[in-house]
């Protein structure tokens, strides 16, 4: 009697696993025929990367060889694709035209690599990364040397890059997002990963959008959107996969993003099963093997009449690049109902995400030994409240009695290293505390050097002090920037300089931020500190700026904006006024007001109109007045010696000179200046952040005034005889404030904190230091004196000003 026939379409990881389970359950249930488009037996696709890097051969990664098919009576048709399914007649058709009948059919066609429709995508030398043919093409290219460009900094892209590098190629990875593997890792782990990848000589360019692949007959390079060109002989596109479901769709099976299957892994046709990357189950398409291993069992059960149910998988990711330890699992997005536990040490980052005392996600970098333990906790959904405080330290601390973190530290052996930077171990600290009677963090730092460098072991040292002397511990009074860190503003800045930190994720990682991505309080502060420290080098993070600084206009209560063009020293001209009037009429701007800062405010401008308004103002020579900026705002002046009968110096002219030198600078908080021509002080210079009062003998320089929430009269800094000296002092003073001021701390508050004598010592008494500060200010101005309006008129950040889409209700209801 003829056996029932099972036809399997595709012979990848999923099909192979189903066959194993099926044969185990009932060797004789079916006459099995497998069609495989690839001209080979079943191999372990995920091990292609070690083959590429030369650590393994194809033979090493075979799962089922020819002998296996023979021994199990399975017919394998290699290199023959199925091109059609006829469900009426229950037959399949092969590419060669043969027709075969089936009783049961299994679709296991996997997925196809995505190909970005770029010019040049079909050139020889452009490959994807999916099967052995691709690996062979890459290895052939690598044997010629030269550079490879890998498009995509995800799992596959990085494995390809590491493999090609191991084969001796120069490699550049282009990644669209700001950090690598952003789907599996948060920015901190992505930052560490990038460092590790770069350490093996691979160039990584994030936020890099490929514009075109270059070459006439073969690949010669890649061009980016920003115009950069990278010469190369190989392009690997590893930008994602798409379920391969064309066959199922043509056969009229229900599909969405993948072939739809129920919990029994059946398609909409009860005689047809589907498994692997081609399916969509409960709204999810997977791209890893663990889910297909779990569902393959259910398929085999369904085929042998004992129904099972597949209910979905939690997945975990590892990167198979030797020497890089990375693990991520579950859902690690942060959200309101979740808490996170973050642990950072040099080169190590761990983050656990909890919801209702259940672990739901984990990201580990650098130390991943506990990954499977965390993964089990995620899958089992067990309540972790009993071990919550020590959870991040892994199973070693989880057994038996719940330990509090202090006890966990107390339990460390004496030779356990606490401070990695200075190599201080626990015993040293404990004995110093005892011998010298230390009771504060500062004392311990001074005596042992523990936590005196990068500070990331501070929490550990504090716990150690508590464990040693208990209540006598005097906690440091530093006010942290926000709840994301224990460090204060000054410590963070000191570390940015000392460790050469050049990005927000770098600061958060190296300084042990307690949250993964910071908050609305620390991100703008860090962004400012980096802008200030690395002029011309650091790329501003616009998403870490308040809306006004992001769109260079002031948001109003109805969501419209106000536009204040710069009016140098409060001086304007008929042409400027005419341009302002024209703009106001042309764009129906409802309100035109003279501000308290000697210039004109156009209020009620719609966001979409901003670039056009700026374009018109720009044609008349006007630039942004930065009325929104934590930066230089206005320099108010009076008429001075040019007109006024009491004027002693050209206060208007000096004000304009100062404004021209200082516009565009970013500062911890806003900076306003005033220059009055005589002590009658009509420009109100004595309530400004920095003021100049002109006198017969020269220029009296004032600072630390304010007239807002607090009214403060200025203090006199010094009197100088020439305009040049006045300028030099003002620029130096501003730079000192830029470097010492805490974010959002105005000059008067900064001066009160650090004390006027220290400011005088740096700026007045020591001409050498003054010059150094002024030079640093001028240097950084080279990069900041770019009119943000003009840039946006030319199209920068165009997405800010245009809606993403406009949809009508008709469309919406369709």
């Amino acid at each position, binding site marked *: 009697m003829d056996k029932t026939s099972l036809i399997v379409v595709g012979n990848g990881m999923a099909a192979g696993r189903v066959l194993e389970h099926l044969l185990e359950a009932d060797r004789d249930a079916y006459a099995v025929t497998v069609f495989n488009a690839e001209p080979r037996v079943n191999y372990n696709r995920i091990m292609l990367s070690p083959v590429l890097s030369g650590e393994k051969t194809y033979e090493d990664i075979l799962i089922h060889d020819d002998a296996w098919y023979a021994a199990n009576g399975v017919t394998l048709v290699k290199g023959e694709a199925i091109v059609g399914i006829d469900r009426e007649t229950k037959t399949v058709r092969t590419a060669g035209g043969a027709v075969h009948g089936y009783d049961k059919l299994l679709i296991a066609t996997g997925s196809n690599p995505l190909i970005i429709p770029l010019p040049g995508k079909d050139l020889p030398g452009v490959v994807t990364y999916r099967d052995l043919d691709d690996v062979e093409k890459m290895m052939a290219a690598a044997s010629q040397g030269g550079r490879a460009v890998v498009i995509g900094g995800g799992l596959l892209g990085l494995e390809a890059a590491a493999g090609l590098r191991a084969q001796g190629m120069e490699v550049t990875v282009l990644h669209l997002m700001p950090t690598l593997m952003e789907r599996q890792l948060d920015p901190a782990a992505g930052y560490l990963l990038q460092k590790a990848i770069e350490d093996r000589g691979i160039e990584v360019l994030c936020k890099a959008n490929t514009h075109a692949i270059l070459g006439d007959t073969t690949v010669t390079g890649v061009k980016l959107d920003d115009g950069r060109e990278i010469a190369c002989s190989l392009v690997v596109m590893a930008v994602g996969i798409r379920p391969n479901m064309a066959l199922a769709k043509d056969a009229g099976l229900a599909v969405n993003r993948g072939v739809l299957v129920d919990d029994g892994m059946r398609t909409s046709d009860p005689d047809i099963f589907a498994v692997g990357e081609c399916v969509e189950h409960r709204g999810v398409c997977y791209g890893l093997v663990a889910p297909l291993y779990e569902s393959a069992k259910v398929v085999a059960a369904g085929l042998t009449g004992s129904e099972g149910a597949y209910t979905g998988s939690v997945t975990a990711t590892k990167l198979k690049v030797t020497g890089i330890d990375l693990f991520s699992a579950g859902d690690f997005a942060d959200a309101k109902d979740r808490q996170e536990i973050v642990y950072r040490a040099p080169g190590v980052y761990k983050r656990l995400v909890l919801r209702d005392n259940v672990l739901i996600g984990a990201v580990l970098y650098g130390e991943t030994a506990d990954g499977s333990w965390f993964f089990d906790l995620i899958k089992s959904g067990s309540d972790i409240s009993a071990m919550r405080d020590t959870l991040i330290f892994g199973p070693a601390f989880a057994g038996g009695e719940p330990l509090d973190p202090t006890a966990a530290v107390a339990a460390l052996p004496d030779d356990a290293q606490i401070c990695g930077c200075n190599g201080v171990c626990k015993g040293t600290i404990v004995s110093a505390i005892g011998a010298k009677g230390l009771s504060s963090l500062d004392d311990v730092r001074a005596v042992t050097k523990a936590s005196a460098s990068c500070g990331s072991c501070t929490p550990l040292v504090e716990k150690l002090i508590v464990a040693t002397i208990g209540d006598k511990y005097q906690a440091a009074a530093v006010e942290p920037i926000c709840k994301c860190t224990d460090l204060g503003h000054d410590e963070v800045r000191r570390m940015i300089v000392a460790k050469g930190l050049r990005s927000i994720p770098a600061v958060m990682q190296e300084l042990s931020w307690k949250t993964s991505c910071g908050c609305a309080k620390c991100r703008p502060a860090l962004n400012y500190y980096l802008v200030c420290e690395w002029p011309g080098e650091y790329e501003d993070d*616009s998403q870490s700026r308040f809306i006004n600084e992001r769109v260079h206009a002031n948001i109003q209560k109805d969501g419209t904006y106000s536009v204040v063009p710069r009016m140098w020293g409060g001086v304007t001209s008929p042409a400027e006024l005419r341009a302002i009037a024209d703009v106001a009429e042309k764009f129906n701007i409802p309100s035109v007001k003279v501000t308290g800062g000697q210039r004109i405010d156009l209020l009620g401008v719609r966001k979409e109109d901003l670039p056009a308004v700026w374009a018109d103002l720009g044609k008349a020579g006007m630039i942004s007045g930065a009325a929104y900026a934590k930066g230089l705002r206005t320099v108010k002046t009076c008429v001075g010696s040019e007109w006024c009968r009491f004027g002693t110096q050209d206060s208007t002219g000096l004000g304009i000179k100062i404004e021209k030198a200082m516009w565009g600078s970013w500062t911890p908080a806003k900076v306003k200046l005033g220059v009055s021509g005589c002590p009658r002080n009509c420009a109100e210079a004595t309530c400004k952040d920095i003021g100049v009062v002109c006198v017969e003998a020269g220029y009296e320089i004032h600072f630390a005034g304010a007239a807002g929430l607090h009214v403060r009269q200025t203090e006199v800094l010094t009197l100088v005889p020439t305009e040049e000296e006045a300028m030099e002092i003002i620029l130096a003073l501003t730079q000192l404030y830029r470097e010492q001021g805490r974010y959002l701390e105005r000059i008067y508050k900064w001066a009160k904190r650090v004390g006027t004598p220290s400011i005088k010592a740096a700026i007045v008494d020591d001409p050498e230091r003054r010059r150094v500060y002024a030079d640093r200010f001028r240097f950084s101005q080279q990069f900041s004196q770019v009119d943000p309006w003009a840039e946006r008129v030319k199209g920068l950040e165009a997405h800010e000003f245009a809606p993403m889409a406009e949809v009508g209700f008709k469309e919406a209801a369709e």
Partner: protein
Amino acid sequence: MNQMLQTRFDGPWVKVGRVDDIPLQGSRVVKTHGGEVAVFKAADGRVFALRNRCPHKGGPLSEGIVHGHAVTCPLHNWVISLETGEAQGADSGCTKVIGVLVEDGVVHLDLSRLPRLMEAAE
């Protein structure tokens, strides 16, 4: 990536653009006859959509700073959850969550629950 919100909404889905069109930790506005929708992309790449009105005084949430799965309103700093639309911390109020479906990098919204024209005129 599959989106968690997808199961709570079932369309009709209206295509509004690409995920790449939204800056990471940023937002874009979609204008509809039922008022504006703010479409956000969190640091982890997930896309969310809310009616673009803060429950406090109607501030445009699209202009806020995005952190985690929340946005800080630009007008008076209320923090609104992108997942539930609820104000967090001591503040209370809720803005409408709009269903999002992301497929092959294309963002679709479920606009069927948007308030109708008249409400938008409030």
